[in-house]
C-alpha cells in the first residue's frame, strides 16, 4: 500500500489562480520524500489539500488507501502536519497545546499527557511546558509545532518548511530527530527551501513548478541529471584575471578565488593539472551551491527562482 497516492489533483482558487494543474505522484511507505519548488509553485496548496485545509477542485488523494473524499477521518488519523506559518494558540501553555491536540485526535487524556511529556522532552521543551507559546523564541515555536504534529503518532508526517528561520544547531537537532523517526517507520514528506536539507535527508524527490510536477525520482537519479557543477577553488596566489583552463569555463570571484564550471562528462583532475602547469596551487575547494540547488535552478529554468537564503 502506498503512503500517499495523488492522481490528477488540481486546484483553482476563487481568484482564478491555478495553483495545481493535474499533478500525479506517489509516496511509498517509509520514504523520506522531498517536495520542492519555488515560491508559489503549489507545494503548500498540495499539503493543504492533504490536510483538508484547502478544498481541491478535482482529482483524488489517498492516504494509506483512505480516499479523502470518502474516508476523510481515517485519512486524517494517519497524518501529522507541521505548517509553514506558526499556527499556535499563543496564549496557551505548551503542555496544553499538545494535550489538546492529542484530544482532538481522540486520544484519552491520560495517554495524551504521557505523549505530551515524551514529545516535549524529545524537542527539548519540557522545561518550557508551562510557558505560553507567545513567550517562546522562533525556533522553540517551530519545535513545539513539530512536537504537536507527533502526538497522534502519525504514519505520514507532512513538514512544510519546518526549519525555516531556526538556527543551525536547532536545525541539525531536528534533522537528527527526523532521521530517527523515519528509520522507525514514519513516512515523511518535506517541503523546504533549504535544498541542502532535502539532499541530506530525503531519498526521493518531486519538483513542482507552476502547479506541475517537473521531476519525480529517487534523489540519486535526480542528482545524476545534474549536467554541470560549479566549484570555487581557493588559490595561494593573488590573481588579477581568471586563468585560462582549456575546455573549462572559468571566472575570477576574488583575487584568490577561481570559479570553475565542470560538466558531468569532464573530470576535475584536468583542472588541477592545467593549474599546476600555470604554477597556481590550490589550497581548498568547495561547491558554489548545493548540487540539488543547481539542478533545481536548471529545471525550473530561471535563476531568479534561486531559493537559498
Amino acid at each position, binding site marked *: 500500500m502506498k503512503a500517499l497516492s495523488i492522481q490528477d489533483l488540481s486546484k483553482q*482558487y476563487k481568484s482564478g489562480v491555478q495553483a495545481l494543474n493535474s499533478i500525479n505522484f506517489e509516496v511509498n511507505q517509509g520514504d523520506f520524500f522531498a517536495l520542492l519548488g519555488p515560491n508559489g509553485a503549489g507545494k503548500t496548496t498540495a499539503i*493543504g489539500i492533504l*490536510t*483538508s*485545509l*484547502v*478544498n481541491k477542485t478535482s482529482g483524488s488523494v489517498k492516504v494509506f488507501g483512505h480516499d479523502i473524499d470518502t474516508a*476523510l*477521518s*481515517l485519512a*486524517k*488519523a494517519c*497524518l501529522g*502536519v507541521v*505548517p509553514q*506559518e*506558526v*499556527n*499556535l*494558540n*499563543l496564549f*496557551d501553555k505548551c503542555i*496544553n*497545546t499538545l494535550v*489538546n*491536540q*492529542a*484530544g*482532538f*485526535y*481522540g*486520544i*484519552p*487524556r491520560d495517554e*495524551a499527557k504521557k505523549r505530551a511529556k515524551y514529545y516535549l522532552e524529545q524537542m527539548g521543551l519540557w522545561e518550557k511546558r508551562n510557558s505560553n507559546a507567545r513567550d517562546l523564541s522562533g525556533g522553540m515555536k517551530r519545535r513545539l509545532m513539530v512536537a*504537536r504534529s507527533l502526538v*497522534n503518532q502519525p504514519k505520514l508526517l507532512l513538514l512544510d518548511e519546518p526549519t525555516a528561520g531556526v538556527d543551525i544547531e536547532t536545525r541539525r537537532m531536528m534533522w537528527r530527530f527526523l532521521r530517527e523517526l523515519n528509520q522507525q517507520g514514519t513516512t515523511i514528506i518535506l517541503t523546504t527551501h533549504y535544498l541542502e536539507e532535502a539532499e541530506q535527508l530525503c531519498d526521493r524527490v518531486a519538483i513542482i513548478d507552476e502547479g506541475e510536477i517537473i521531476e519525480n525520482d529517487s534523489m540519486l537519479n535526480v542528482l545524476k541529471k545534474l549536467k554541470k557543477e560549479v566549484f570555487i577553488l581557493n588559490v595561494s596566489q593573488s590573481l588579477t584575471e581568471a586563468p585560462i583552463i582549456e575546455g573549462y569555463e572559468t571566472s575570477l570571484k576574488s583575487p584568490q578565488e577561481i570559479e570553475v564550471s565542470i560538466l558531468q562528462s569532464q573530470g576535475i583532475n584536468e583542472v588541477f593539472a592545467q593549474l599546476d602547469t600555470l604554477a597556481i596551487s590550490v589550497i581548498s575547494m568547495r561547491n558554489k551551491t548545493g548540487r540539488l540547488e543547481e539542478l533545481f535552478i536548471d529545471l525550473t529554468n530561471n535563476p531568479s527562482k534561486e531559493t537559498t537564503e
Partner: protein
Amino acid sequence: MSPQMISMFALMRKETSRVLRIWVQTLIPPGITMSLYFIIFGTLIGKRIGEMDGYPYMEYIAPGLIMMSVITNSYGNVVGSFFNAKIQRHIEEMLVSPMDETSIVIGYLAGGIIRGLFVATVVSFIALFFTELNIKYPLLALLVIIMTASVFSLAGLINAIFAKKFDDIAVIPSFVLAPLTYLGGVFYTVSLLPEFWQTVSRLNPILYMVNSMRYSVLGTSDIEIVDGLLMIGGFFILLLSVAVYLLKKGIGIRD
C-alpha cells in the same frame, strides 16, 4: 468512549477552562455593567416609575437584565474565541484532526453556555443587593438560560465563521444584538406599546427569551411560556444546522 466523543470533550474542556482562565475579562465586566443598570434604572429611575405589570420596577427588570447578560456574554464568548482561533490560525489544530464538525460546534457551544451560566449567577447575586429574587420556577429558569445561551453561542459562532476582520465581529453586537435586546422587553412590558409596535415586537426573538425568563422568575410574561420555549428551541435547531453546514462546507475556514 469513542474517539469523536473524546475529541468533543477535549474541546469542551478547553473552551470552558478558557472562560475561567480569563475570568477578569469574562465574569467581572458583566457584573460591573449590570450593577450600573440596577443602580441607574432600578434605584434612581425605577423609584419614579413605580410598578410595572404589578411588580416593583427593580424586581421587574431583574430577569431581563440577567437574560441580557446571558445573551451578550454567550455571544461574545464564542465569537471572540472562534475568531481568535481563525486569526491566530490555531483553528487548524482541529481542522487537520479527525474530529467532525458537530463536535467542533458543540465544543464551542459548551464555552458559551458555561459563560452564560456563570454570568447569570454573578448577575443574580448582584440583583440580590437591590431586590428580592424569589425564583418561581428554578428548573425552568435554568432551562431558559441554557437554551438562550446556546442560541446566542451559535449565532456568535456563525458570525465568527463569516468574519474576516475584527470589525466584522463588532458590527453584529452593536447594530443588531444591542437594539434587539433593548427593544426585547428588558425594561418594559410590550403591553405599554401601541398595537402596531406590539406586533412588531413579537417578531423580535429576544422578546421571547426575556419573557420566558421573567415568567420563570416572577410568573408573569408578555407571551405564553410555551410559545417562548418553542421559539427558542426553533432558533436553536435552525442555528445549529446552519453552523454545522457552514463548517462542513468549509465556508470561512478553508480555501
